[in-house]
């Protein structure tokens, strides 16, 4: 079977969605993964955007934004951010959120705010590289029952400590989330360009759960800045089936995967 790294990543992410889930996606690859799942194995799942567009699917291509015409053409409800991120996510009603990341640490904490020249001391200076900030990712990570994080597996992105903690994973590990009484459960998986990490049930440290057919445990460890542990049950991620690829391509009308 022929498939690309991006296709493997999108399908692996889509497989995290269960039939019947209420899901919230961002734009780009996470939305592609989400709508792939809704079209393939999770036909009773429901998708919402953080701006409050419900019941829709992309028309004429993958949307440029969560509020644009392509995601608004066949909606059943337009409401607002307070409804979507508040009444549906902060309430604990949302089952699954998919978020992106620029940097992640061993406890699944995510940085999407910026990179600094050196680790920030007490003074908080201007960033060397400004990224996009939280958007709704922090809210999704605090409220959704399950969170899936997607990012490229590179050493600079898999850091011992994130430059800025935009979105909480398991903070310092263990039961650290309890201090803040987050209603959501935290990240259940980190889908990378090389494989899938999942948190240890007790320490919450991310471990290699599976690696893609074209990847290896060694390659994943070599591209991680901390000593990445391997689950005792580690496996090879099942490669995309012909049916999965067919549905993924049908959802990807505007060829986002080819553009990458």
């Amino acid at each position: 079977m022929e498939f690309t790294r991006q296709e493997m990543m999108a399908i692996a992410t889509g497989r995290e969605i269960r039939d019947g889930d209420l899901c919230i996606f961002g734009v780009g690859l996470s939305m592609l993964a989400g709508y792939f799942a809704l079209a393939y194995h999770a036909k009773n799942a429901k998708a919402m955007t953080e701006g409050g567009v419900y019941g829709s699917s992309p028309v004429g291509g993958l949307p440029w934004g969560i509020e644009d015409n392509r995601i608004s053409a066949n909606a059943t409800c337009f409401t607002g951010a307070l409804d979507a991120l508040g009444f549906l996510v902060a309430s604990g009603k949302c089952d699954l959120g998919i978020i992106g990341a620029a940097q992640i640490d061993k406890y699944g904490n995510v940085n999407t705010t910026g990179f600094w020249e050196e680790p920030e001391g007490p003074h908080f200076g201007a960033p060397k590289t400004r990224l996009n900030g939280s958007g709704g990712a922090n809210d999704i990570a605090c409220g959704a029952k399950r969170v899936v994080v997607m990012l490229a597996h590179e050493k600079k992105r898999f850091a011992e400590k994130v430059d800025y903690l935009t979105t909480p994973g398991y903070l310092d590990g263990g039961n650290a989330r309890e201090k803040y009484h987050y209603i959501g459960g935290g990240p259940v998986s980190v889908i990378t360009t090389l494989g899938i990490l999942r948190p240890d049930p007790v320490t919450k440290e991310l471990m290699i759960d599976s690696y893609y057919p074209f990847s290896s445990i060694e390659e994943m460890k070599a591209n991680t800045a901390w000593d990445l542990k391997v689950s005792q049950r580690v496996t090879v991620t099942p490669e995309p089936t012909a049916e999965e690829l067919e549905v993924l391509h049908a959802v990807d009308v505007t060829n986002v995967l080819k553009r990458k």
Partner: protein
Amino acid sequence: MPNKLIQLRDAVSKYTRDGMVYCSGGGLPVGSDSLVFGKEMLRQGRKNIHYLTHCSSQQVNLFCAAGVCDKVEAAFSGLEVYGFANGIRHAVESGRVIWEDYSNLSMSLRFLGGALRWPFVPATVNIGSDMQYRSAFKPDEYPCKSKIPEITDPFTGKVYGALPVARPELVVIHVTMADVEGNAIFLGTEWSRFELARAADQVILQADFIVDTDCMRQYPNLVRIPDLLVEAVIPWQLGAWPQCSVGVYDSDEEHMAGMNKMLGTAEGTAEFRKKYIDSWQTHEEFLAVIGSAKIDKIMKNATTHLMDPYRKWIKSDQEIAALMTQSKFA
């Protein structure tokens, strides 16, 4: 209720001033935002604006690139699939603009709290993250205890956070349609336009269409901003361009990318201003800058059926010109 139609340039000169706490709505990176109002603010030389917004938009991008604002409080600084916002990036990295980060829900809650005149809003999000512990406005306070301070739930004793409420002096909201009195209906996500219209001291609407008040009487449930809250209404079709207005026009892909590229440098920003702001005064000239072929292209989109119920109440350009002469501002 009086007729509140106002010319764009008059609205900017009457309601904006240097250093004010300004807000635009929806505050969406690709969707509805009061872009044309922002361009007129730049043309009139406004500076030191303290910008409160949900998310960045090309308006925030332009303000950062052109030195209109020096402080921003927002949840997002990108342009979604159009990428990083170059004007914002360079301004924040160089320290010209101080950017205070919140999340999308916390910005919504801050506007809600501002609208209700609450002293603060309890936060179950942002706490435990660097949005709580780091403040760009108070860079030497670490861990910051005054941006989202800890509060104790008086009922359970559990510790949460307190979000500061947001009360802009002025919000300019892009709406799909408004009547001359300021009743407004918008299509697509509301984002926080409902809360914003109630949080700000003054509210101005920028409308793609002016419709008869009978339209509001037919669909009163859909009027999310009532005339009671509104100071003035600017009729300006395609006012969110190059962003989209659901039901009316798509985002202009070519211009979204080209504008962002230009805003990446001082020379490009000056060229942008010359080509796309200084080149027009009237609405007709504004449309000529976009070009009729481009207008036809973005008006043909998958959402136009959403406008169908309202078309019979849309006022023509001639009718709007006549109504303008009867306005309280005439």
